[in-house]
Every structure is written in structure tokens, then in C-alpha cells.
């Protein structure tokens, strides 16, 4: 690591008074004094960085080198579907007709954008088996919030106040957090010995107070819940609605559909299944698809295709006249730039390519699981449930911890020294020392072999000297960081101006 990359000075610390990267356009109108009353005028300007363009570029380029990224290496982060991000998508999203289109442009000047959104909606409807789509939510958790508010609106329109949402104990944390923000109450449902929903527990907890159940299928254990029809029958039987968390859709595209399983509402993660680059924590995109009975409550505005007949081209309009709609969840139409990328992806792969992607994702995950077993890893890191998996699998580091004296955290940190991003750790919560591995379809067999060999090597090393893993990583720009100290006395910015100090 060069000295420049080792540098941790902030852009603020690097600045010197008078330096700048910006040249203002000339003031080409007469200057007028006193346009703002003194009380409204800022007296102390914000202490923004003062740097030249070369310094600006060097600072952020060097910072970027302190990041691991998907373009550099394997990133088997479970539940996050870190598949390749095609560069074509960046190129087409940057076309001025997409990138420099104002959201209040009159629909007559945005027909290409509206047609793209309509096409994407139709594709997502077909993939999910649910006919009505809103692209508006900004991320998965935003889609979940839309979904639970829709379930609530559906019941209230029938004069029912249903306050409970069933969530399995394997659920993503966003599920219960969403329920709270929707003003409803979480009721946990247990997991059975096969990793699916415990049907007896579900029957005991489902009732006239049940608004909906939130499920991921395959779930976060990488297990397809084969009882899904029974689950749907139980929940529908008490008048509830089924919500599908689409985080794991990458396992089943073209193979089975949430709508056919009995779900009423599904959210997609365009930044997982449909290759929107994750950007280090967003942008995401969380469109939802719903069944006919939930459709009246869907967000506005909606895109409508108007066929004028006579062989004329169809016209696309934004439409808000839906009196039962829950309203809007954000400004404008959603994260359009992500729609461009995901639509390009769907057109690149087509029907067959999407199915191939899911089949290959499942094949890769099962192969990696088999390779880990062959390498002798299973003794220390057994599969938590079942024998095969879908697109991801959960190992338990319990035996490793007991027999080798290293924790899942240590294994993850040691993987950094091998040049791999670790899998998701300590989730799902019900598995001891969990390691959630999702290789995705875009990795080669050689990469999977290399990863399996690295884990085997770390375990061998730990049998001889566990201290190496316990103190890992050893080769990264920084080593283990004191998170407790960071939380105890939070320093979350530089103290610059007196007023914010």
C-alpha cells in the first residue's frame, strides 16, 4: 500500500484557504444589492473543503483504493446477490435522454422513459406472476413498507382493523422494523426442523387479527419452503394477505413465481436480482407487484398505456385518479436510473437467460457447498439445514468455535487476507455462528474452487495456530477497528464551524 493510499486525512483537513476546483460563470446580469434581508442571509459560510481539482481527484481515487469491490473479486455476501454489474448499463443510463430528463417533463416529452417503465413493469409482472406493478419504492425496505401499508389498506377497506403481521424468526430485520413503522404488531412464527415455517405454530398464531405474513421463499436459510401452498391456505383461510420479500428471487426466476405460490404482494430488489450496482450502500430500488385484490390500493402515479387504435403508436401517461390508492411514498416516479439498468439486463438475458441465471445461481451454490464438504470443511462448518440448497446456504460455525477455537467472525476476517469478501455473518439469527454464503451465477467454477480451498486452508491453519485468524486481518489498509469506542463517544464528523461544534 502506497503512502497516498495509507493516508487518512479527510478532504477537509487537506484544504488550504483560497484553493478551489470551481470557476464560477461570469455574472452576466446587473448586480443588485440587498436582494435578501440581512436576517435571512448567512453570516458564516459553511466550512467546505478548499482544494484544487488535482487534489480532489487524488483524494477520492486514493480513498477508492481502500475499498474492496465486486469488480475486483469474489463477493459471496449472502442475501445480497452480488452478481456482476454489466458496464453496458452504466453507458445506457448515462445517455442524456435518460440522465438529463427532468421528472416534471411533460409526458409528451418523456414517452421513451414512460415506455421503458411500462415495459419493465410488464416484465416484473410476468416474472412474479402478479399483474400490477409500481416501480416507486426506493429500496427493498421501502417496498416492504409499501406492501404492509397496502395490506392494511386492503383490510381497512373491508372495515377490518387487523393489527398483526406474522414474520418467521429467519426474517430479514427490515421485516419487523417495517411492521412497526406501518403501525402494526410483529408476531413471530417458529422455524421447523427442515428450515421452513413451523405449520403448527403458524396455525396457532394466524387468526382474524392477522393482517399479513411476510415471507422470503427460498428463505434466508437457502431453503425453499415446500409447504408454501399450505401456508398460503392457512393465511388466506383467516383472511390474511401474503407478502413476499423478493430478496431471494434470484433462485427462482422462470422456475416458480410468487403469484403462483399464493402471494398477494411481492417486492423486487433491482439492486440484487437485476444488477443495479449497489454503490456501497445504495442506490437501490424496490418495485412491488400485487394481485388483483390489492390493486385498487397501489401507489400513484401509475403508468398507463393508451392504445389509440388505427395502427397508431400507443401513448404512455402518468395517472393518479385512483381514489383507494394509499398515495405516494416518495417524490417523482422512483429511481428511474435503476430502471434503465435493470430493464437493459432483462432485455440482455430474455426469458431463457433469466431462467439460466437462476439455475446457474443454484448450481453454483450447491457446487460450492459440495466442494466445501470435499475439502473437509463440513466437520467444522456443517450445513445448518437439509442437504442441498437453493441459491445460498447457511453454515454453522459452532463446531469450528468449539474445536478450533476460532469464531465465524475470525474466519471472515481471515478471508480478507485471502482476497475474498466474506459471506454474511451472524445472520440468520437462529443459527449458531452463522455464515450465509451466496456465490451468484456470474462466478466461475475456478473462483468457487479457490474460495473453498481458502476456507479449508484457514481451518487447517487454525488447527495449528488459531491466533492467526483471531488477530486477522493482517494485510488490509487497517486491521480490526474498535467499534465499541466508536459507539461510546461518537465522533461522526469533523468539528469545523463554531455553530455546529
Amino acid at each position, binding site marked *: 500500500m502506497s503512502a497516498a493510499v495509507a493516508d487518512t486525512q479527510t478532504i477537509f483537513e487537506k484544504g488550504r484557504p483560497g484553493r478551489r476546483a470551481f470557476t464560477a460563470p461570469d455574472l452576466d446580469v446587473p448586480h443588485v444589492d440587498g436582494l435578501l434581508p440581512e436576517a435571512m442571509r448567512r453570516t458564516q459560510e459553511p466550512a467546505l473543503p478548499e482544494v484544487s481539482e488535482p487534489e480532489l481527484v487524488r483524494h477520492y481515487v486514493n*480513498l477508492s483504493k481502500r475499498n474492496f469491490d465486486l469488480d475486483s473479486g469474489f463477493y459471496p455476501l449472502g442475501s445480497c446477490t452480488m452478481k456482476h454489474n454489466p458496464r453496458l448499463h452504466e453507458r445506457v443510463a448515462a445517455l442524456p435522454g*435518460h440522465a438529463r430528463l427532468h421528472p416534471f417533463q411533460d409526458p409528451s416529452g*418523456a414517452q421513451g422513459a414512460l415506455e421503458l417503465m411500462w415495459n419493465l413493469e410488464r416484465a416484473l409482472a410476468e416474472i412474479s406472476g402478479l399483474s400490477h406493478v409500481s416501480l416507486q419504492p426506493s429500496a427493498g425496505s421501502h417496498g416492504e413498507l409499501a406492501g404492509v401499508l397496502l395490506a392494511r389498506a386492503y383490510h381497512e377497506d373491508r372495515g377490518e382493523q387487523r393489527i398483526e403481521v406474522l414474520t418467521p424468526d429467519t426474517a430479514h430485520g427490515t421485516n419487523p422494523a417495517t411492521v412497526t413503522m406501518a403501525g402494526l404488531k410483529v408476531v413471530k412464527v417458529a422455524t421447523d426442523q427442515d428450515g421452513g415455517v413451523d405449520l403448527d405454530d403458524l396455525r396457532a398464531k394466524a387468526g382474524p387479527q392477522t393482517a399479513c405474513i411476510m415471507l422470503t421463499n427460498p428463505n434466508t436459510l437457502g431453503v425453499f419452503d415446500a409447504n408454501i401452498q399450505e401456508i398460503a391456505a392457512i393465511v388466506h383461510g383467516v383472511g390474511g394477505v401474503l407478502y413476499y420479500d423478493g430478496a431471494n428471487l434470484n433462485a427462482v426466476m422462470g422456475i416458480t413465481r410468487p403469484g*403462483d405460490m399464493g402471494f398477494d404482494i411481492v417486492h423486487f430488489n433491482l439492486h440484487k436480482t437485476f444488477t443495479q450496482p449497489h454503490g456501497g450502500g*445504495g442506490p437501490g430500488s424496490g418495485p412491488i407487484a400485487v394481485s388483483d385484490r390489492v390493486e385498487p390500493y397501489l401507489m400513484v402515479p401509475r403508468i398507463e398505456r393508451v392504445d389509440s387504435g388505427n395502427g397508431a403508436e400507443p401513448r404512455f401517461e402518468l395517472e393518479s385518479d385512483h381514489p383507494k390508492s394509499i398515495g*405516494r411514498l416518495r*417524490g417523482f*416516479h422512483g429511481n428511474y436510473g435503476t430502471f434503465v439498468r435493470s430493464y437493459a439486463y432483462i432485455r*440482455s438475458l430474455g426469458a431463457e437467460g433469466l*431462467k439460466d441465471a437462476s439455475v446457474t445461481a443454484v448450481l453454483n451454490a450447491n457446487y460450492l457447498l459440495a466442494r466445501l464438504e470435499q475439502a473437509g470443511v463440513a466437520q467444522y462448518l456443517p450445513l445448518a439445514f437439509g442437504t442441498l440448497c437453493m441459491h445460498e446456504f447457511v453454515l454453522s460455525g459452532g463446531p469450528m468455535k468449539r474445536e478450533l477455537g476460532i469464531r465465524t467472525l475470525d474466519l471472515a476476517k481471515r478471508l480478507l487476507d485471502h482476497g475474498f469478501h466474506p459471506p454474511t455473518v451472524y445472520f440468520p439469527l437462529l443459527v449458531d455462528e452463522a455464515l450465509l454464503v451466496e456465490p451468484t451465477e456470474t462466478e466461475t467454477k475456478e473462483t468457487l474452487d479457490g474460495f473453498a480451498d481458502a476456507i479449508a486452508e484457514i481451518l487447517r491453519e487454525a488447527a495449528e495456530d488459531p491466533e492467526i485468524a483471531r488477530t486477522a486481518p493482517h494485510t488490509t489498509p487497517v486491521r480490526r477497528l474498535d467499534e465499541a469506542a466508536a459507539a461510546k463517544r461518537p465522533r461522526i464528523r469533523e468539528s469545523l464551524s463554531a455553530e455546529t461544534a
Partner: protein
Amino acid sequence: MAVSRSGAPDVVVAGTFTSLRRVSRYTAVTDDDLREMLDAIGVASVDDLFASIPAALRLDRPLDLPAGLPEQAVYEHLRELASRNASTEDEVTFLGAGMYDHYVPAVIDMLMERSEFLTPYTPYQPEISQGGLQVMFEYQTAISELTGLPVSNASVYEGPSALAAAGWLAAQTTGRPRFVISEGTHPHSRETLRTLSVGYQTTVDEVPLRDGATDLEALKGALDTDHRSASPTAAVFVQQPNFLGAVEDVAALAQAAHEHGALLVVAADPLTLGVLEAPGAQGADLCVGEGQTLGNRLDFGGPSFGFFAAAQAHLRKMPGRIAGETRDVDGRRGFVLTLQTREQHIRREKATSNICTAQALNALGGVVYLSWLGREGLVELGELMLQRTHYAREKLSALDGVEKLHDRPVVREFALRLAAPVERVIERCRAAGINPGLALTDDGLLVAITERRTRTEIDRFAEVLDAAVAAERSAVGASA
């Protein structure tokens, strides 16, 4: 799926379940690989991997989607769609109303497209994510500087949902069930707050404008009803500058809110905060807003980012990621996601918010933009907008049949009233290559100015608007 116009022929090749058809350009399993992989797994075919999916649930046909296309054909299709949009390269635009046609410097494109920023996930492993984490720390510092508030998170989705997120914090913190929101806030913000209030179990009352700005007496009246009901107000929401471009008297609004124990939430345009007083210095408890003006492109409304800043007291109730500074075992400076016990992956149903993925890459664009502008540049740009906006407002309102909707101070946007049907005037202007702004009710027109709109363009706009209004007035006169 029927794909209209320019799509490829709707040919669907039947997918086979038992073998992968071919190596696609994003996957790499060869026939040899497939055999070896199935052998290692110990199954005969990929079918066996899906045995847990009940037969009745299997899709017994290919998805009804068009066949896949080569990269160049996808490019041509997306380019054709783009060509049917009128972008800010195709017309001189005075559209704003929440998103604005600012110049985005080249360094931002370059940095946002770097693999190391574009393709990682959220920084769950800080040792290999120091770049992204330090960017968050710098971003938080910049937002605190802009807003005059000591606490910022690392981004939320966008403007209106940021305002609604502030409502959730206020309701949770005060335990009060009512919001009072100015009609000077963006209509999308008000609609979003109403949607989410169903879940928050809060009510929303609106306070009207008077002469273009929030009616202070009406606000006080609305808050006074607290004393006569069991619904005290959690938060008052205003926008700076407001939807009609007027600069609000935030200090007075803050005082009114605080007298009733309510928090003041200011939705601010961050690019005006070089010339406008910091909301934090005027008593705002929370300052949120749309970050698009900070180096993010229009993108037909997103992705951009929302910012969320607060007074110190609200640190532990903040939504979303927050980066904090710490040390590693060797004593080196480093950054981590901190105060994570607020968040959904730890606290689940007791979390301060459900937000997970936010807008990190767009927030990177924001802090790079602010560093590019710099301390002096932010003020210079604000002053340029202030002067050109004044020039444009005076020039346009001097035309026959055009008047100011209000006389309040404005910085980057102003509202006019036309003596002609606004939709038809807009149509005429657009035919002349100028998009004049957003139609408001009662033939109002909202006009936005950025550093990209030169005096020459403003003068040309005045000519075109003059002609359009005159033509429509004579058309109305002729038909009367």
C-alpha cells in the same frame, strides 16, 4: 409481454430445465464444468437441485418475455428510447420544483463510475471498506456544515421521504400524534407524509401561505388548537426556499413551533445554503431535503439522495447508517458504521427506522460536488443564482399579461401568474425550444434558474413567453 415499437421480435426460445443452453455473457458454466459440478454435488441433473419445489408450483412454460439480445442491440434499443425523451440537452429548461438542471462536473462522473465506489455492498467489513466509510464521514461533515446542525446520517432515499422520516423521528421522540405542515412544502412531500402517517398513526393538518410564505398567524392558530384537544403537535414542517420559491422566516416559524413543544423540520435546498442562513442557526431541530442539486443528475427523478441532519439530542433516534471515527488495533485512524443498535438488523421491530439500503453512491456525488465547489464556490454559485433569478423575475414580470405571484425574496425560483391558459403557453414555448417551467393552478408558472441559464437564455425566454402569452390572449379574445 408485448414490447412495443423498437423491441426485438417477440421470439421466445424454450428454456430447458435439464441443461444450461449455453454460456451466456454473464455466466461461465461450460458443458465440462456442468458435468464436474453435478458429479461433485452428487446429482444427475440440475432438475434434482429444484426437487424441493412442488411440481404444482413449477412454471410449465417459458416466461413470456422477449428473447435475449446481444449487447449492441440492447444499446440501440435503450438509445432509441432515450431519443424519444426531451432532455435538458434538447431544450432550454426553466423547470425545477424539486429537481434542477445544474452543471455536473466531470470529476463526479469519473468518481461515481469507479468500480471501487460503484460495486461494493454496504460496508459491513470495515477493514476493506475504509474508502466508502471515510466518504460517509466526510459527507456527514459537509451536511452538518451546510445545515448548521451537528448530527447527520450517511443518506436516506430522497427529499419527500426524508421529510416523512423526520416525521417518524418527531412522533417517536415527542410521543405526540399530530403533524402541522406548511402548504409551502413540495406537494410530493405532503402526499408522502400523509401516506406514511397512516402507519405512524398521526394526523396531518396543513397551514396555508399568505403572500407566498407560510402564514405565521395561521400556524400559531393551528398550534393553539392543541390546548383544546388531545392531539398535541409533534412537528411543524416548512420548506426553505418554499415551493413557490419564497424565502421563509425560519426563525419565526421555529419560535412558534417551540412555544408549543413541537419540533421544527425544515426541508431545505442545500445549494441555497451558501447565501441563506443555516436552518440550524435559526432554530430548526431537523433539517432534511433533496440532494439532487449537489452534483446528481436529473435521471427523471432519481436516484439522487436525501439528507437528514439533526440537533445533538436526536443522535440516538436517527434513521439509517452513520459512520464514526475510531482506531484499529495498531492505533491507526479508521472509520466504522456506528450506533448500529439503532438499526433494523440489530433492533428489528424496535429499530429507529426500517431503512437499510440508502443512497451511498449519490451521497458520494454530493460530497465530491461540495468539495469541488468549495467554501467560496458555494457562496459564489448562490450569489449568481440570486442575481440571475432577480433579473429573470423582473424581466418576465414586466411583460404584458405576466405578474409576480408574490413579492417575497427569492433565491433560485419564483412564481408568476399569467393572463392566459398556462398549459397552452407552455406548449407554445416548448415549440420554440424553451421549457418555461411548471404549470401551477390558476395559470401560475413556476420558473427555476440555475448557473446553466445565462442572461442570453433568459432574454430569449422573455421574448418567447411574451409572444406565447400574447398569442393565447388574442386567441381567447378572438373566441370570446
